[in-house]
């Protein structure tokens, strides 16, 4: 197994995520795309953790611990994000991001 294979997987997931964020109109789908990007990062962390340390080194688990933290924070972030989406929907009666343009200068 090579590190590159995992990095390619991560890059693919990340690009998919960005594509979703930039093209989807529905806020829920955008949130889901963000989750994809976070998953890509997790893949990278675990891969680097595994490949950059010797098999017996306890530091090998550092990448995995990091990924666990990212998962936790992603859960919290989704919680906040869905709450915002819910409030946008209540106020604008739509979950379409193009309708939420009150920040327009």
């Amino acid at each position: 197994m090579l590190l590159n294979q995992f990095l390619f997987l991560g890059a693919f997931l990340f690009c998919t995520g960005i594509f979703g964020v930039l093209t989807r109109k529905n806020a829920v789908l955008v949130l889901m795309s963000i989750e994809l990007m976070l998953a890509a990062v997790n893949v990278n962390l675990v891969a680097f953790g595994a490949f950059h340390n010797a098999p017996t080194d306890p530091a090998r688990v550092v990448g995995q611990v990091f990924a666990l933290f990212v998962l936790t924070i992603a859960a919290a972030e989704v919680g906040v994000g869905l709450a915002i989406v819910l409030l946008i929907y209540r106020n604008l009666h739509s979950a379409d991001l193009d309708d939420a343009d009150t920040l327009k200068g």
Partner: protein
Amino acid sequence: MWFLDHAWLVPLIPAVSFAVILLFGKRMPRQGAEVGITAVAASFVLACGTLVQWIQYVNDHNGGGGALGALGRSIGRLGAEGGEAQVLPVVHHLTWFENAGVKLGVGIQIDGLAVIVMFVVTLVSLLVHVYSYEYMRGDTRFTHYYASLSLFTASMLLLVVADNTLQMLVGWELVGLCSFMLIGHWWEEKPNSDAAVKAFLTTRTGDIGLLVGVAMTYWMVDSATGHGSFNILAVNQAAANPSVSHTLVMWTALALLLAIIGKSGQFPLHTWLPDAMAGPTPVSALIHAATMVVAGVYLGARLYPVFWYGLSIGTPGHGGLNAMAVIGGITVIIGAALAFVQDDIKKVLAYSTISQLGYMVMALGVGAWTAAVFHLFTHAFFKADLFLGAGSVSHSGSHHSFDMKKDMGGLRKYMPQTFWTFIIGSLALAGIFPLAGFWSKDEILVNAGHNGYKAFLVIGAVGAFLTAAYMTRCVYLTFFGEYRGSVAHEIAEVHEAEALAEGDELIEHHLAEEQDPHFVPGFGHADDHGDAPHESNWILTAPLWVLSFLAIFAGFLNIPHSEKFEEWFQPRFGFVDVHVAKFNVIVAVVSVLIALFGVALAYGYYWKGLGPQRLSERNRLAHAGKHFLVMKYYLDVLYTDIIVGSIKGPIANAAYWVNQHLIDNVLNDAGRTAVRAGRITYDYIDQRGVDGVVNGLATVTGESGGAVRRVQTGRLQFYALLLVLAVGVFALALWIFT
């Protein structure tokens, strides 16, 4: 040794008391007087402890105490003159500040001179504090009066305990300040504030000498040891050091002599002291008789080796003259002569003080160190006694007047206690055996003769004659004859038999009294007015009796064949080799006879009407002589009209011209230039420069804001796109540059 080591507490306590009285005095039940009296009493106790321990300390060095020891010592001293054990002064000091490697300290130097003067200062100060409680009762500035007294006591003690000349200078100036404040205590009246200013400025003239002298003491030590110091012991040793130039020591001595002349009322700067009598009488007793005016003598005694070597006191060649003795001798005579023509009882005493201070300075000048300090010691008691007696007379006998001819006379009957204490003080001052003044004055005369200063022996004797005569005149005018005060006619009605004969004359006196410009109705305590003269209450008489007691017995401290004063208080370390003359029966008898002759002459003149009465009205020469004395030798005219006047006119005119033509022109030009510069600044810098920058910034901000605002579409995904593109650009940049 506790008291000797902790002598710094003695000045510290009144200093604290000063602050407490000033801050909280008005709210206290006795308006601060209780704090002042308590503090100075504590100081007095400490000073007594210091005195006793010093005597023990000296006795320890003599090898044992007790009567047998004393006998053995006196025999031993006869055998080996000058072979006494050295007694080191107790010195403690700490660094006050340090500059360029020179340490300037504050400290104490406790030796015989310091402890005896400390004792005198605290004792007289305590009595004056008590006396003032009654004398100043009801005064508008009672609290400030006590605060000033406390500050004065603290400053005087600071001067006394000082171990360096710089600290002495500080104490010296502080006592001058307190003197100024207390002379001008009743400043609402112009003559009083004038007197305060005169005292301050005249002593300040002498203080120039002190400043120069203190600076020179530093260089004297520098020239002797290589590093300068203000330390008194070092200064005294430097004065004796042959490697120090004699010229330097001489000029130092002369500069310090000028300071003594200013502070101790010596000719020709004595003119402030009689005017200083404008202050409250207890102040005159404390400051202008017993303590502050002897600060000059104290300075002379403290730095005696400087004078001894600088003025060659020990080797009286050239007819036995030196500047110090001459100044003192002149002062003895001119002070005593002026006392004859004064009508104001306090001025008689003031001129007497000048004359007695002349004795002390003369004694220092003729090498009689011990006699000078001894006279300082005894004089403090009997002169304070006389001043407080005069205060008692004016308080209860003459309605706050000090004019002997107008408001006194015959008070012997009404004020017996004041009368007797005044008599004791006068006899002591006149030098009648065996009162205190006799012993100290006699010692000055004996030593003047012994040290080869025969001329000053004669001057001292003439001074003794004059002193006895003017004090007799003063006592006569105050206490004998008929009462001449403003209520004389009321008393005369009681004594109708006498009134029939003299009534007209007395009423005339009464009318004259009311026209007297010095008479201030309602001044002080209204309750005393209109009363017949009466004895003062015990708060005033108790200090008089204490001082009278000392005026009688203080002299026995140095009686012949015991000489405790000399043994205990004459320095025995780093000091000059003064030869103390033995008691001389002939000089003693002659000086007492001279004094008695003076008393007898004045008695004959005033009581019996013998001699040429009213000579000055008949004889032109005598009239001129009296006028010369009344005008105080025209010294005040010389100072105020001739010296100050001649400086004042031309200099003031020149200053006015400079002011009008030079300074005003410069100012006007400066003003016009400033206006022009302001206009230019407004037009070009403010309006165009600063405003342009500000407006330009605003315009740029506004327009760039308008351009950038188009990016803000409000569409979230457009922002995200920008974000991703930016990250892409950064990543590209990173990849290219690494």
